[in-house]
């Protein structure tokens, strides 16, 4: 089996305490979004200062079908961007230097950044290796002045450039950062700080292209364009029902976002929402046995990570990319939650056999496990406090539902506040 790049994924979903104090929606919040500029490249420049000012890319070699994981601002100026196949990047810029990824270093430095953010406020939510949200509502200084201090601290203490967006919610703060980044001087890290004052959220984002809105991917963008919608302002003018008609549940959400409304709190505890593992083959593979073997291998890794995290999942997902880059995913819900390799692998191979036609070449395979929760043992046990309690609750709920119907009792979290 020829493995090109391997990728692990762990989607993070919010759980636990939300940090909205007092009357959360009445008081305007101050949220910062911090994004480290070309983070991997910035770390590589720290490792090797001679890279400064040069066009270079971090990622896999073109021979092994590597892709650009990150590229320096001089390289961006030449039209190179992340996720671009390295071979294409080299065609655009034959003098492009390719630097191998040093993920451990990035993680280590990312941790140092997070540690400094948490020094400022415990209400810091890391959303990726190079991005974080901070809720600084409780601090006396203005958002802008905190942003300046933060930017200086990250630059002076760690030697890293970063951009910061300041707004009254996460959505607009992130978009402020994106706007700041896109206004960078050619070939230079943006080092931007963009502040959106309370009340100006909608007007700030209205002229922006729809692709910049959270949750709008290429397919949604195309469908919105078909409706004559090209800017976020265009969405904001539609009614929730109108977009709901076209986009289901997400429609009204788009409208609220487009109006700059976002009440999601900064979350400081996390749980993993899905565990996935994928591989891009160094050359396309059309051999069924090799593909199945790869899936088993990926399933084992997913299982291992699930067990390590003390999680079991109920849904197994297959991701498959054909040689023409079209990608599909198929999923199946299992009768029991599992963290067992064999079950994950059996499920994903079942999906694969239904999807794959003999001889068809595959470029990428991925296996995911979602619907994660504690590996709730099916086997009940004596003297097991938690299970005794959940048992008693389950039984009490069942009894009430048997008598008064399914809607008679629901768990607190699933009840919508209608007041």
């Amino acid at each position: 089996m020829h493995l090109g790049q391997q990728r692990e994924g762990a989607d993070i979903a919010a759980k636990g305490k939300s940090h909205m104090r007092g009357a959360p929606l009445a008081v305007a919040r101050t949220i910062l979004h911090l994004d480290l500029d070309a983070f991997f490249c910035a770390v590589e420049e720290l490792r090797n200062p001679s890279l400064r000012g040069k066009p270079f890319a971090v990622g896999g070699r073109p021979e092994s079908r590597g892709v650009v994981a990150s590229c320096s601002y001089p390289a961006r100026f030449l039209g190179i961007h992340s996720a671009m196949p390295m071979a294409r990047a080299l065609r655009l810029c034959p003098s492009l230097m390719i630097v191998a990824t040093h993920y451990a270093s990035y993680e280590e430095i990312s941790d140092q950044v997070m540690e400094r953010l948490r020094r400022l406020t415990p209400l810091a939510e890391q959303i990726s290796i190079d991005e974080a949200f901070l809720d600084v509502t409780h601090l006396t200084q203005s958002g802008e002045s905190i942003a300046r201090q933060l930017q200086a601290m990250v630059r002076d203490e760690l030697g890293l450039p970063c951009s910061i967006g300041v707004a009254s919610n996460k959505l607009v703060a992130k978009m402020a950062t994106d706007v700041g980044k896109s206004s960078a001087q050619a070939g230079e890290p943006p080092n931007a700080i963009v502040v959106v004052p309370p009340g100006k959220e909608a007007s700030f984002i209205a002229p922006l292209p729809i692709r910049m809105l959270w949750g709008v991917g290429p397919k949604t963008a195309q469908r919105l364009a078909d409706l004559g919608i090209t800017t976020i302002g265009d969405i904001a003018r539609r009614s929730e029902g109108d977009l709901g008609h076209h986009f289901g549940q997400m429609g009204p959400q788009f409208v609220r976002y487009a109006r700059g409304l976002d009440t999601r709190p900064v979350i400081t505890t996390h749980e993993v929402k899905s565990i996935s593992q994928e591989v891009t083959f160094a050359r396309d593979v059309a051999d069924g046995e090799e593909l199945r073997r790869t899936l088993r291998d990926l399933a084992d890794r997913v299982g291992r990570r699930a067990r390590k995290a003390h999680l079991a999942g109920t849904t197994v997902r297959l991701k498959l990319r054909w040689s023409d880059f079209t990608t599909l995913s198929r999923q199946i819900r299992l009768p029991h939650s599992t963290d067992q390799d064999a079950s994950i692998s059996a499920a994903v191979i079942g999906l694969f056999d239904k999807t794959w036609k003999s001889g068809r070449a595959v470029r990428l395979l991925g296996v995911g496990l979602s619907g994660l929760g504690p590996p709730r043992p099916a086997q009940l046990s004596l003297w097991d406090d938690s299970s005794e309690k959940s048992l008693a609750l389950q039984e009490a709920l069942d009894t009430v539902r048997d008598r008064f119907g399914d809607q008679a009792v629901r768990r607190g979290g699933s009840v919508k506040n209608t007041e």
Partner: protein
Amino acid sequence: MRVKLSPALLGSSLRDIIGIIPSHPSSPILGAVMMSADENGIWLWGTDLDVSGRFLVQGEVEVPGRVALPARRFAETVRSLPLDQDLLIDAKEERAEIKCGRSRFLMPVMPAEEFPVFPELGNPDKVMFSAVTLEKLVKGTVFVAGREEARPGLNSILWDIEDERMSMVATDGRRLAWMQVKLAEPTRLQRKFIMPPKALNQVVKLTGSTGQVTVGFGERFVTFELPSAVLYTRELDTAYPDYVGVIPKETRIELPLSRESLVSALKRAVIFAMPLTSQIRLGIGENKLVVHAECPEVGEATEEMDVTYEGEPFQIGFNGKYMLEILSHIESDNVVLKMNAPLKAALLVPKETEEGESYTCLLMPLRLNE
């Protein structure tokens, strides 16, 4: 120390003692077997600190003394020797020489003075038990004792003696077995002991089901005196979980079943059960019991049995292998399956028992996914 013995006899005693010596000793000396030779004969000593044993080996003592040797290597060496030659062990300060026919081995000796001292029992209460009775109690309970280190209370046996009544209890939290017998003769004892199952297993293995075992109940130890061995077990310093409290006093549903038919139905169904949970689903309807198992890749099995039942239809899941294991320890031809609710403890008990005896096996269900 110099002794002459038969490799066959030594080999068999070593095999017994290896059952006590830990396979991953926490210190090298705990991985040793000690051999002592004096006017009391030749004895092998081994311990894991909870359970200790000494075994008498026939042989000639030429020079008294004692020696500690790495148990597993020593046993392996002796086991592979020809049985028709005498074995000579000559232990000096640093090393022991083992000779047998044309084979000769040198082994470094371990410091015998570091070998753990066996407990002094003083004057324990001594009671004779028939090996059959002990075996019955041990075999009926020990199989459900837990092996997880994490829940120490659940990997031990509770031995409860109250004059002429004697019982043993074992549980791993998922299953519980409790057997009580009436002794032929009163013991005039009132003792409760929590002990690792190892010693009891060893005793049963050594006695088989014949003869008598003299049991000494000391302050913190119990000894088992057998014709050519003495086993010691320490009382464990843990509290035993409240086993009486978890056994349902009353059960709503009681199904009398033929043990043999239930066993054969379960055996077939389990072939189709999910390998990890061995989940089988019992569906109880009017005068019918349906045993069902399924596994996505394997298929499914359905077995129907006639029962006497007229209540509400009811479904409950169990680990089929656990159930079979319990059934294999019940001697009675008919059993009663007692249940209250799908997520509550169920009981499997023999329908007929000998006078003064009782045997209760508790089985926690498996949660069935809707």
